């Protein structure tokens, strides 16, 4: 027994030392003074090289260290957990970076973000409709314009729609396109038939926090969708149940999803597709004009106005460290030269949010002889943004869009059923869903 005890003691000492050696650390590392930290999800900051470039410049000029705290996390929920714990610190992270797909409204509503109105002088240069309670500082924006297949339109002999084209025009073109030959049924078709009509019905009322599902309008949309999908316009795999379609559209690492993605890009299918699956940033005219020329595409603003515009930027953490320096950093990021850099390089972080440099941009466009159409599109979008019609809705009322996504997943079961639901069955199902969502909404 004695021998065992001694042995155990030795091991424990070794392990203890092993574990404490990594703790001894110089004092400076813990109480850092002239340093600001930026928190990001995994390495999304890499998507914006302008940020990296500017950080080097900022560090050189001011001598203040800018530490990027890239939180590694398996899923986005884990990241949120970690970020939230960090926010409870007194001297927490200074800036939080939100990429285009992350939602910042929750942090602003809960009082984490600092109101920067008047404290960052470049802030007034930003387009007003991109601001949200003066607490979010956008740096770059993308407007995902839809792409139509031009030579297909010519084939169909249809008139090219202009910029303020409506949904009716689009459906008219689509009807003609469908009559020609049965088409492959993919997620863009699903969105046109089910998702967009439902979104227009304003099912989720965010302020009163009520979900209204069990009504005639929704039922009509579902019946109409079933009629359209199972009409012989689409090539449907009869064996597929709703689960298969669910996997094909939403389960990202299932091989059905990958096959459908590949089919969308497959060359020989590509020129038959009317509307491309993934849009393009309509504002970056250097890119759009070459694409228009090379692949003879027609790039138009979106019909569903609300999820086109997306911004990436920062919020300033109220009880973060060195908040003043953080704001100076953001001020530099919004300066004209840096924003202009973003326009010049194609993959450099979206379109600048700075109003003053529009004439410089048009000068660059003239220099690289950008096509007239591309410039028109950019001007059109900017006009709509200035008028406040286009807003980053998806990021502002994020709750609505999270539940909307979950809702569409549940509704798939009703649409792709083998046996058709009778009316009461349908309303019963809808009622069940309505109750469920009413609970979540005001959890």
């Amino acid at each position, binding site marked *: 027994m004695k021998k065992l005890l001694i042995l155990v003691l030795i091991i424990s000492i070794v392990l203890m030392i092993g574990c404490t050696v990594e703790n001894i650390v110089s004092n400076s590392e813990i109480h850092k003074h002239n340093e600001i930290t930026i928190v990001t999800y995994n390495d999304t900051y890499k998507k914006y090289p302008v940020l990296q470039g500017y950080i080097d410049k900022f560090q050189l000029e001011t001598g203040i260290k800018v530490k990027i705290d890239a939180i590694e996390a398996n899923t986005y*929920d884990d990241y949120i957990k970690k970020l*939230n714990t960090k926010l409870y610190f007194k001297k927490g992270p200074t800036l939080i970076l939100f990429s285009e797909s992350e939602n910042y409204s929750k942090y602003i509503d809960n*009082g984490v973000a600092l109101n920067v109105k008047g404290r960052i002088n470049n802030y007034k240069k930003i387009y007003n409709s991109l601001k949200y309670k003066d607490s979010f500082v956008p740096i770059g924006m993308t407007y995902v314009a839809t792409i139509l297949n031009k030579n297909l339109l010519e084939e169909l002999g249809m008139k090219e729609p202009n910029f303020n084209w409506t949904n009716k025009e689009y459906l008219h073109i689509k009807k003609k396109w469908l009559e020609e030959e049965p088409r492959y049924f993919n997620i863009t078709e699903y969105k046109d038939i089910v998702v967009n009509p439902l979104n227009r019905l304003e099912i989720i009322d965010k302020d009163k926090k009520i979900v209204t599902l069990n009504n005639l309008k929704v039922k009509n949309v579902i019946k109409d969708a079933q009629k359209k999908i199972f009409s012989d316009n689409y090539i449907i795999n009869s064996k597929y149940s709703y689960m298969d379609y669910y996997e094909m559209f939403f389960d990202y690492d299932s091989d059905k999803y990958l096959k459908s993605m590949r089919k969308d890009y497959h060359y020989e299918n590509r020129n038959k597709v009317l509307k491309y699956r993934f849009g393009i940033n309509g504002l970056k005219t250097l890119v759009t004009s070459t694409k228009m020329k090379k692949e003879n595409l027609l790039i138009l603003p979106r019909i569903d106005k609300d999820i086109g515009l997306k911004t990436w930027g920062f919020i300033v953490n*109220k009880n973060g460290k060195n908040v003043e320096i953080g704001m100076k950093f953001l001020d530099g990021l919004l300066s004209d030269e840096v924003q202009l850099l973003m326009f010049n390089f194609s993959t450099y972080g979206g379109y600048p949010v700075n109003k003053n440099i529009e004439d410089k941009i048009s000068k660059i466009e003239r220099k690289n002889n950008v096509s007239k159409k591309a410039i028109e599109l950019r001007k059109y979008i900017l006009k709509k943004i200035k008028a406040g019609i286009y807003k980053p809705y998806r990021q502002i009322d994020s709750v609505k869009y999270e539940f909307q996504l979950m809702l569409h997943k549940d509704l798939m079961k009703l649409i792709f059923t083998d046996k058709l639901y009778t009316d009461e069955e349908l309303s019963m199902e809808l009622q069940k869903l309505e109750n469920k969502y009413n609970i979540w909404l005001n959890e």
Partner: protein
Amino acid sequence: MIFESKKYKGLLFILPSLIGFGILYVIPFFGGIKYSVSKSSFNSTFVAFNNYTDVFKNNAFKIALKNTCFFMIISIPVLIVISFVIALMIYELKAPKIVKLSIMLPIAVPSGTVVGFFKKVFGFNGFNLIDSEYAMLVVILIFIWKNTGYNLIIYLAGLSQMDKEVIEASMIDGANYFQRLQYIIIPLFTPINVFVAIVTIINSFKIFKDIYMLQGSYPNPKIYMLQHYINNKFNDLQYEKLTSSAYIFSLMIFVVVFLLFILDKKHAKRVGGN
């Protein structure tokens, strides 16, 4: 018989554990209470109980509480009985090692495989239970499958430590197996049973991990547990609601545990412990 003379010695023995436990568990315990009474996680103005009343008014919390209690009331006793019975069978029948091993192994299985397997069996192309009304059944099944091994280990240790002499004496008196069981083994086992009950309660919190991986943070309302509510509140930065709901729940659990504790003390008196 308590050894008064060496009263302070006890403290010396407990000191290391007490210090560590105090810093790492007691302070956060009261820290949590501070949050539960403050207005919101970022401005801590004292607002007493209206956090608690808000939580009670919220019907998502009500459903969660209902589901959790339903789950615990059913699964915990069932699990304890099953694991006790299996432990006895193994002990009496001197079952081969394979049996013990195969029942113990599920506790080591990562939740990924659990989800993969049960989704296939009870998912869409299986019995299609998860999305239906009887989803709770699947959850209880997973819980029992995963935790019998846990309690089995404790019971086996308890059985092997039991005092052989008492059993032989009862055998001589001609008590058949069941009478022996009822009058000797079970009473003797109360301290271990108390512990097993506490451990099973704690493990019932861990089932959340599997449900979370099965259906994400907004599952089928039938299996919407309290931990889902807590987890969602945590993500929505409403820390005050989270802490208040958790304290309500742990208060309820504590009442049950306190009863067990009294049972344990009563047993100790009867057996003549201290």
